[in-house]
């Protein structure tokens, strides 16, 4: 008898977003994780960045210097280790964005080549 009193399930119609899968648009909720996902950016090898936070210890290059692939650009301390940052390509230093003693954060661009 109790069953009779219960109302049928209500379907909420608000706040749906759309999601495109194989050319079909579906109405649905999105998850926090999906919304916050990092969007892909093509890697630009000439933008030298650090992967972990740390401190700049030594800098070997200046604006305008020609560098070869594998040449040491600077030394950067992180995880209690001195890490050599090498040039990934042949090029010319366009700008050095840090000075000795600077603390840098993850993904920060420290040297730009051209």
């Amino acid at each position, binding site marked *: 008898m109790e069953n009779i009193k*219960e109302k049928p399930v209500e379907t909420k119609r608000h706040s749906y977003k759309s*999601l495109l*899968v194989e*050319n*079909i648009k579906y*109405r649905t909720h999105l998850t926090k994780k999906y919304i916050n996902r990092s969007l*892909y950016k093509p890697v630009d090898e000439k933008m030298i960045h650090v992967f972990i936070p740390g401190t700049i210890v030594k800098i070997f290059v200046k604006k305008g210097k020609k560098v070869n692939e594998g040449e040491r650009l600077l030394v950067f301390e992180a*995880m*209690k280790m001195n890490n050599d940052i090498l040039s990934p390509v042949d090029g010319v230093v366009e700008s050095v964005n840090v000075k000795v003693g600077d603390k840098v954060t993850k993904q920060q661009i420290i040297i730009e080549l051209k």
Partner: protein
Amino acid sequence: MGLKQKTADLKKRMREAVKGGGTKAIEKQKAIGKKTARERILAILDPKSFHEYDMFVKHAGTDFNMDKKFLPGDGVITGTGTISGHPVCIYAQDFTVAGGSLGWAHAKKITKIMDHAMKLKIPIIGINDSGGARIQEGVNALAGYGEIFYRNTQASGVIPQISVILGPCAGGAVYSPALTDFVFVVDGVSKMFITGPEVIKTVLGEEISMEDLGGAKVHSEITGNAHFYAESEEECFYQIKELVSFIPWNNEIKATPYPKKSPKTRKFNIPDIIPADPRQPYDVRHIVKAITDDSEFFEIQELFAANIVIGFGRISGQTVGFVANQPLVLAGVLDVDSSDKAARFIRYCDSFNIPLVTLVDLPGYLPGVDQEHAGVIRHGAKLLYAYSEATVPKITVIMRKAYGGGYIAMCSAHLRADFVCAWPTAEIAVMGPEGAANIIFRNEIKNAENPEEMRKQKVKEYKNKFANPYVAAAYGYVDAVIEPYETRKFIVHALEVSDHKDIIGPKKKHGIPPF
């Protein structure tokens, strides 16, 4: 000394042991809203069922003046008891005694009760509340963890293993819960991480609170390490009792049957729940409830990868594991997290003789660079592996969309579902009509006077011809096309006739699933 004095001496010793870390430490524990280890055990078990062992075990530390210290029970309480009549082994780390730190004797007590559970073939419940290894005992503390991890692995798939995180559980200690079947967490109480906020700050300069790094919400929503999230310890204990009622004591028997009940079909009426347009969402949990006894559904990992729903329900009194695409979230797509979540659950059910019911309604896999780079190939493969490998009765209900790889992965006939039924609303096709028409009729569309008009027409043509269950039924990939209201009847019968299902696969040590 006569019996009287000896008894008095025993009582005195027991009083000492029961005090744990003493009044001050207990007050501290309570001040942060935590129960004591003993209170937790008593709250989980049936009244008067707890029997404690190894109450007088002494700790093994000798260095750093540790030999002069008395640590009651060495910071962990172990014993046996019952939960609604189901026998269990249980241990609880006592944070009031040396921060619940794990020394050699502490670990020995835990491994002893684990061995006990294995011999008796009953579930083991571990309550974690510990600052980590007892540094003073050095390498013996590490040995203790290793012995626990080894036993967790040996017990995996033999007896149910339940971990309850009711305090810190950091560093190596996290790997015991990670190796067990179900992890329970409580908001504001549970904290799990490999490296804590302090280390992260000194080494990486990143500042984060304990809660944001490894709190209950994080592990329930983001990492998927936890299976059950509760707002309070009481709610958590209630969830544990519920879970124990659904699972068997070991891998040789079935879960205890309960009295048969009908679903509440007035509240959960399938035709009222499901929109015929495959692009419209609904809550698939309502479909599950339209099928299960008393419309009861015990969901697992509710907050993690909500685009797939997993959990237990009963059909004719028998425990069944449900795996269902959730159109309400991300249109019910398969992705890295949802494949991982479902695959592990399927393997759990297979290990413990729990039949699987799969409810299918998905557009396919989630597109995106992040998914591809996160390894959706190998994670997605876990689902195929788990379904193919499972030998428990497998029943599949195709409700609406079942396109492409998603159709195969969701326990299709090809992965050896024993019974596949489809509703008239089912669309079983190599891909969605829009995508398929664009490929098949590419030239017709391109060369048409009005390509958009032609595209629409071709999509319609494709839909009429292929977006139905009858093409698959014609090949026998679907065993029966049924009306939605007949679903429970179909499953009840399928379970009845597959009670003695027996499959012997090729001889092997073990497979190599895409972990």
